């Protein structure tokens, strides 16, 4: 017995005329636009923004002086190294990996800045940037080519880069060229440099949001196999993410050396956890696929806010790291609850 041919050739009919379409009255549209903007944010962001705004409000309430340009500029200056290293971490987290060697790269470039640029060798700074990039490339090689899992590979390189930094400069000392320091901590016209640099970073963040590279990075963090099926060059993109991370970590170390006007081989270690905290609290997902540079920036400032609020309340400063640790774990916990539910549904196909 055969069944009849059911589909005729010709024009496909309109689908689901009964389903609501996107059309609507203008004011409905703009409200819907806002709603979609809000819901378009990841759950992480939805938690983060109110928290961030609250923290800002509390801080500036406690310390109105903080809003003055010079004070603000100083705060931004001290936060920028964290911002840069968090951005570095963000790129790697987006691919679903992790890079703990950012601390080592920071230490290495910091130390190089303090020792290598003496006596007319200021142009070496370019080389230092390249070294940072190279460190990222090495990480990329280990992860992509040697197929060593990111956490192992970057723990190893963390040790190596830290070791090299220690080798070059056994204890804090040295000094980067004064001219660089003055330039970076000074003003360009009426604008303090830190604020300019921050604005530049934010512009970069906004720009990067819609680059194809970032979309590709997000896609491999979101679902590697599907990204592959869709034609993404997974290995090349991963490589790029680690290289970019090395670059930004290097910039972080360079900037840190300049604003502290000295070199210190042990700076990196504290920044490792903080870079993850800033990124994750800012909304980047540890599992990959969610996040952006802007979140790293916001998260970094949230951390700084935290530190500042604590000091304003005359709480001893050592309280901050554990509190941030707890905050990190809480955010992870909440997020993984939601993510795990989704994974369960994917399991059953």
């Amino acid at each position: 017995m055969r069944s009849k041919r059911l589909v005729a050739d010709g024009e496909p009919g309109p689908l689901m005329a009964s389903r609501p379409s996107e059309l609507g009255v203008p004011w409905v549209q703009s409200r819907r636009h806002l709603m979609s903007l809000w819901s378009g944010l990841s759950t992480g962001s939805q938690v983060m923004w109110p928290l961030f705004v609250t923290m800002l409000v509390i801080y500036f309430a406690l310390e109105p002086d903080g809003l003055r340009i010079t004070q603000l500029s100083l705060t931004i200056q001290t936060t920028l190294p964290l911002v840069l290293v968090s951005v570095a971490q963000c790129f790697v987290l987006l691919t679903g990996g992790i890079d703990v060697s950012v601390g080592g790269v920071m230490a290495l470039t910091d130390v190089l800045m303090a020792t290598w640029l003496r006596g007319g060798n200021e142009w070496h700074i370019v080389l230092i940037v390249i070294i940072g990039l190279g460190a990222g490339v090495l990480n990329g090689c280990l992860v992509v080519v040697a197929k060593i899992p990111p956490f192992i590979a970057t723990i190893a390189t963390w040790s190596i880069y830290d070791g090299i930094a220690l080798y070059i400069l056994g204890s804090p000392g040295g000094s980067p060229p004064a001219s660089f320091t003055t330039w970076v901590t000074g003003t360009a016209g009426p604008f303090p440099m830190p604020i300019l640099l921050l604005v530049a970073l934010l512009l970069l963040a906004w720009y990067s949001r819609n680059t194809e590279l970032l979309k590709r990075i997000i896609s491999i963090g979101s679902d590697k196999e599907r990204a592959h099926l869709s034609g993404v060059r997974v290995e090349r993109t991963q490589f790029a993410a680690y290289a970019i991370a090395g670059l930004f970590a290097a910039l972080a170390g360079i900037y840190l050396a300049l604003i502290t006007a000295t070199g210190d081989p042990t700076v990196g270690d504290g920044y490792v956890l903080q870079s993850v905290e800033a990124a994750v609290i800012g909304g980047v997902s540890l599992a990959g696929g969610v996040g952006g540079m802007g979140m790293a920036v916001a998260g970094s400032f949230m951390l700084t806010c935290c530190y500042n609020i604590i000091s304003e309340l005359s709480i001893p400063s050592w309280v901050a790291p554990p509190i941030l640790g707890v905050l990190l774990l809480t955010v992870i916990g909440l997020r993984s609850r939601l993510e795990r539910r989704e994974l369960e549904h994917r399991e059953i196909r």
Partner: protein
Amino acid sequence: MGLVLQHIEKTFGGVRALVDGCVEASSGEVHGILGENGAGKSTLIRVVCGVTRSDRGDMLLDSKPLTIRSSRDALREGIATVFQESSLIPALTAEENLLFGRLPIGWHRRIRVTTLHRQYESILESCGVRHLPATALVRDLSLEDRQLLEVVKAVSVEPKILILDEATAALGPEDTQWVLHQARAAAGRGTVVLFVSHRIWEVRAVSDRVTVLRGGRTVLSASIDEVDDDELITAMLGHRLEEQYPSRKQHRANDVVLQVEGLAVGRSCGPVSFQLHRGEILGVFALPGQGQRGLLMSIAGALRPEGSMTLLGRRYAPKSPADAQQEGVFLLPEDRVREALFFEHTCLLNVMISHTERRRALRFLIDRRAEKQSATATVDRIGLEARRLPDIVSTLSGGNQQKVVIARALLVKPHVFVLYDSTRGVDVGTKADIYRLIISLADEGLSVLFYSTDVTETLHLCDRVLVLEGGQIVGNVLSSDVDEETLLGLAVAKVSVADMEDEDYEVETARS
């Protein structure tokens, strides 16, 4: 003009998935591909879309040789696939996914958002889909919407070859019709359309020609008008080598061991209700992806379903496979390498992992001698040589590996033994050993849930068979009452005469 696949071969670690795969599909034609699980059709599709590389064989497109080594190659050659597992990136929006790979780049490598949006809208419009919001993240879309988007994505590329692999799996009747229309429209534009589905009526409704694969070979290739459903089913089944099935005495109705009521797992399975009796071998027969995984994993405690289950009169709601085992339910998982075996360890460890023999004196130590004895006795029963116990499991053949897992189950002595496609990739001799064992276990009073994709095996081994299709039980029959054709017919959603004359059955009659 068209796609020609000649004598494609592919072997996966000892299993010959494709022996002689041949397809000839012309441009402007919808070519249906049918086959049971293990017949090779999924492997063939994977070869064409670049996910796998064939060992041997040629591909020709428009009489020119086609070399595809990766999915990127396939995309470049103009092959668009609607994958069963979806290729949409969950973290990106609908519009980004739709135009992935051809995003409009503007100034300094930045994506033109407004252009993207416009392109998205116009593509949806031309396909007759209107409701998928452009900025919604794919992970927030429903399964149906995702599948629709995937189809639109593939079709909008205007590919040379369009592959639809179970593209209608998650869709309701209206959406299914739309997909079928799209397939024909694409064919109308000159595309070669490969349409893979396990539902015969769909294939018939949309195809011009059809190819049937069985045992890795192409066994039938004809115009759809020349064959009827029964011929198709016979081709899918074919005559196989006479395998030894041990004789079984007629099972008599017994008390109920496991009662399942309204079990549902997400959207893929259920609600489903049935009973399992003591000493019964209950078969579950379904083609891939019909909800059997959700069902069996729930019974084994690996998932938490809705609905309720009762085991030996008591409420049974295991929170983990460990709970399930304590209650006496043991699962032999689907993928023995990934879900059952500890590949780098010895057979002994693999056998004893669920049940250790402790020393009488120092209870926290393992009694090695007792373990060796238990293990030896158990592997004897399943026909595995005891001298292989110290060997590393990765050095064993597939059949022997399966025996190791079965030995593990035997030691636990469950009340209910759930076997998930346990004879896949296993040689004939081992299969016979397994059948013999299952029957003797059932004779001893154990109840067996036996999921298989092999019709003959199911009928010969099981007392009763549940057929799953689309997450529902579409058949609950005694194996003595049906033949292989009927069983497969149920699983492939063959449309019967009665159905077609039913008023509710929708038929598109628009003809130009």
